[in-house]
């Protein structure tokens, strides 16, 4: 099953924020984690993550710092900011509303 483009785009922000809320990370690791956690259903085109990261950085929801990777290359690490955590809380509520609404409809459909 592949998710639609719009849904992937809409879920990108909360996913990135939620992953960074667990700990600092970098682009490749974030994508790997998303793929693993979604059991492979959420497949991002790798490059598309970076504009999302840069947008979040511009809005100060996350902050970036250049560090070194295990192999010694330069690597950009991201961490969530206080604003980011606040935004994540908001997003979480919003997604819960969507989730519970859909559940309600489908429950009714099943009992009807």
């Amino acid at each position, binding site marked *: 099953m592949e998710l639609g483009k719009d849904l992937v785009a809409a879920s990108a922000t909360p996913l990135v924020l939620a992953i960074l809320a667990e700990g600092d990370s*970098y682009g*490749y690791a974030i994508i790997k984690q998303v793929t693993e956690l979604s059991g492979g259903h959420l497949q991002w085109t790798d*490059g*598309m993550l*970076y504009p999302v990261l840069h947008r979040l950085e511009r809005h100060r929801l996350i902050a970036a710092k250049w560090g070194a990777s295990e192999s010694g*290359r330069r690597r*950009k690490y991201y961490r969530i900011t206080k604003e980011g955590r606040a935004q994540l809380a908001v997003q979480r509520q919003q997604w819960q509303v969507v989730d519970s609404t859909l559940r309600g409809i489908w429950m009714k459909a099943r009992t009807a």
Partner: protein
Amino acid sequence: MTISADRSPLEEQIAQWRLYLRRRRAIHGPDVEELEGHLRDQMAVLTEAGLAGDEAFLVAVKRMGSLDALSREFAREHSERLWKQLVIAPDAAGEPGKATRIETLIVLSLAVAAAVAIKVPALFGLRLSPDDELPPFYARNASLFVFPLLTIYFVWKRGSDVVRGLWLALPFAFGTVFANVYPFRTGSDTEVLTALHLPIALWLAVGFAYVRSRWFADGERMDFVRFSGELVIYYVLIALGGGVLTGFTMMMFEAIEMNAEWLVAGWLIPCGAMGAVIIGSWLVEAKQSVIENMAPVLTRLFTPLFTVLLLVFLATMAWTGSPINVKREVLIGFDLLLVLVVGLVLYAASARDPQAPPDFFDGLQLLLVVSALVVDGVALAAIAARISEFGFTPNRVAALGENLILLVNLAWSAWLYARFLRHRGSFADLERWQIAYLPVYSAWAAFVVVVFPLMFGYR
């Protein structure tokens, strides 16, 4: 970057890919590095899983997504980096052709309206002709002929509602009142001051229309600053063309023994000057790309030159000990110097990536600001020492007020720059300070227009 002496074919391929990325204008150096890091991480995992190097490369590149789509996403996020409309519009907007045609039509109508507006007072006996002196009415009201039309353009372009448009009409109504109710003596200082300051005060209203309701949103006001600078550049270019047109008009009609002065002075120049504001704004809006690089280039070019000038001036003054000869124009001259330095700081800030670490150019900017502060301090001291001799005239009070406003801006900018250079603060602080300060200029200009004539008895 790990480029070994014996470049393997794989490294060669990666280098090629990097080159392709770099050619995309929306993707900058550090972004390329970040993406390359990603590519290598991906390849490392794939190689571990048993793929050969070049296989891993192909898979990793494929997963990265098409370069076109990628650079479009980057362009969307970093829209300041290139022409938004050329890259994004073709596939985002459904019918670009039609929307462009409507806009062209509206812009042309507004430009014609501005050209007609400047001729309306002639119906009431205020003629523009080469023989008479320019009626001061025109100088006082110049901005009122065209700024409201420019505001209408932005209200339409940004899709603001009518109520908002009516609110924006208020400043212009006030402007009209204060430009015309006071019984100025013809050619008096306060009248000239009104003519000079009213456009500055009203430009803020245009700014409100430009940024729509998001005056306090990040970046919107900076866009307006960019727009203003680029409009000036476009306007100068159009004026140059207009000058050529004027020259030819005169020359050709003279060749058939006819004097075209009335046409040039009465129609061509005033109508052209008004219409060019609208056309210039439209060009800036439509073709941001060409000029977007212009203001920063000029800034980069002239920041070092002005820094050298100021330093040499200070050194010469210290060496020879010759004091500043306080004449009538000196204060205004130093005001203009500060305006220029603020402009350089502002446009350097508008073009800079706020996330980039401090570099040599930032140090140069700080040096420019500090030396301008020192020079202005010396000039102010000289003027203050003799202010009792001068007495207070409207011109001097206005010039002194402007000097103080600019001095405050620059002093705080220098402080923020120094903090930024010592890694104590971010560049965004400086940018925010500059744009937060913008309304101060307009407020002071409005104060000069409204209060000065009363304060100085229309002198």
